[in-house]
């Protein structure tokens, strides 16, 4: 049937001018950078990764800056819980260790110099991430505010997670991948958790216990990942590291995890990505005990 011939074909019914007009519309591909840009924007819209990235970069409470959560339509169920630590509380929130719905929610506030610290905890079902927004304490004693968004859903490791897809990415993209792999919010699974935030005096002891427990769990996760890596099961190692990244988004053992990730990249044949991360690591932690191990993977300066 000739009328079902494409008009761009010379033998079709279209004349040369019509074909020329059609040809002008053939190039509609996106500019090169758009794919990565939209991906990054999408991660932002899901409202998780940028905040996680920001939380990693928090070197000390005194330099904490607000990080705006720009979730477009995350669909995440958020339960807000606000408590006020009143009186002459001396410091800013230093560590805020929070567990999921099943485990309950707790927070650690360290005393600081601010007169009043308001801490707001959001428990997001299914985000698979924790994120931190915080404002440094005002030296003049005005209110300091911190917002923490944490995952309440159990961490799910994608069974088919393959290093070949994710590990090509620079660090930021890996964060993005982790964000997108987070479990979706489940309808009706809004956190009913009501943190047993009692009086401010009880918080440090509870927080200490939580901190120790978290550290133990994080160390255990990294031990498992290392064992998989040493055994050459790279996909498993990657999945465990990614899960650890989601679960402990304000990690105590960040350097250890990053060192493993760099080794994993290198062993999976992605020398360029390994070198990129290794350089970033060494620039940030030049005195790290892992520096000597990572140095050869960074390549020439």
């Amino acid at each position, binding site marked *: 049937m000739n*009328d*079902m011939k*494409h*008009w*761009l074909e010379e033998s079709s019914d279209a004349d040369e*001018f*019509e074909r*020329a*007009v*059609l*040809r*002008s*519309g*053939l190039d*509609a*591909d*996106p500019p090169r950078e*758009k*794919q990565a*840009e*939209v*991906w990054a*924007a*999408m991660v932002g*819209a*899901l409202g998780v990764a940028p905040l996680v990235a920001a939380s990693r970069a928090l070197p000390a409470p005194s330099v904490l800056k607000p990080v705006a959560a720009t979730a*477009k*339509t995350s*669909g995440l169920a958020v339960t807000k819980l606000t408590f006020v630590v009143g009186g002459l509380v001396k410091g800013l929130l230093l560590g805020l260790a929070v567990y999921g719905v099943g485990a309950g929610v707790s927070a650690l506030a360290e005393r600081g110099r601010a007169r009043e610290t308001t801490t707001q905890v959001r428990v997001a079902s*299914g985000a*698979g991430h924790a994120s931190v927004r915080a404002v440094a304490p005002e030296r003049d004693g005005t209110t300091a505010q911190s917002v923490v968004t944490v995952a309440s859903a159990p961490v*799910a490791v*994608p*069974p*088919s*997670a*393959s290093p070949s*897809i*994710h590990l090509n990415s620079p660090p930021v993209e890996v964060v993005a*991948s982790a964000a*997108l*792999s*987070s*479990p*979706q*919010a*489940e*309808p009706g699974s809004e956190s009913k958790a009501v943190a047993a935030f009692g009086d401010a005096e009880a918080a440090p002891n509870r927080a200490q216990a939580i901190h120790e427990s978290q550290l133990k769990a994080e160390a255990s996760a990294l031990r498992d990942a290392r064992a998989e890596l040493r055994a050459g099961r790279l996909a498993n190692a990657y999945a465990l590291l990614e899960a650890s990244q989601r679960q402990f988004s304000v990690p105590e053992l960040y350097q250890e995890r990053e060192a493993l990730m760099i080794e994993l990249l290198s062993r999976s044949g992605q020398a360029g990505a390994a070198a990129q991360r290794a350089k970033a690591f060494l620039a940030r932690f030049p005195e790290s005990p892992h520096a000597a191990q990572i140095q050869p993977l960074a390549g020439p300066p």
Partner: protein
Amino acid sequence: MTQPPDLAAFEAAYREHFAFAWRSLRRLGVPERDLGDAAQDVFLIVYRKFAEFDFQRPLTTWIYAICLRVASNRRRSASHRHEVLDDSSEPVEPPRNISAAETERTINAERRELLEAALDAMPLEQRAVFTLFELEGQTGEEVAALLNVPAPTVHSRLRLAREVFRRTVERGRAREAFELRRVGGER
């Protein structure tokens, strides 16, 4: 219960279909400046529904259907705001003493405008068929499968869309011939 999406599969789908979604949105009339947002809208929907998708069906069909919906919504909101979807607000005037390459660029830009004008004159369902068939190079059967409509419907929409295209292009043909004569005469 909503299952968490398989990240690796989603990322692969994103990489594989991003350019197609972008081209589709563009050809369905989403203005250049809004393409990034529209593509993001498309893949956010894909992400949210990914775990529920029946992978026995072609992913392209599903993604194109989402593109159609997103483009349609954007056209509707643009018309509510009385926006002109065409990016070019000024007609392209060929300058004097221009080189052959510049003339060609100008002519191409005008042809592109002409194509956009023709596409804008089509109802969205005709536009979808026309762009998939003529610009994306798909067969009638492929278009039918992609749009989930019978082949005769594709045929009919294509015929109507071509009529619109021809009418619009005819107006540009005379203008281009005149400008080419003018540029030639000035040399």
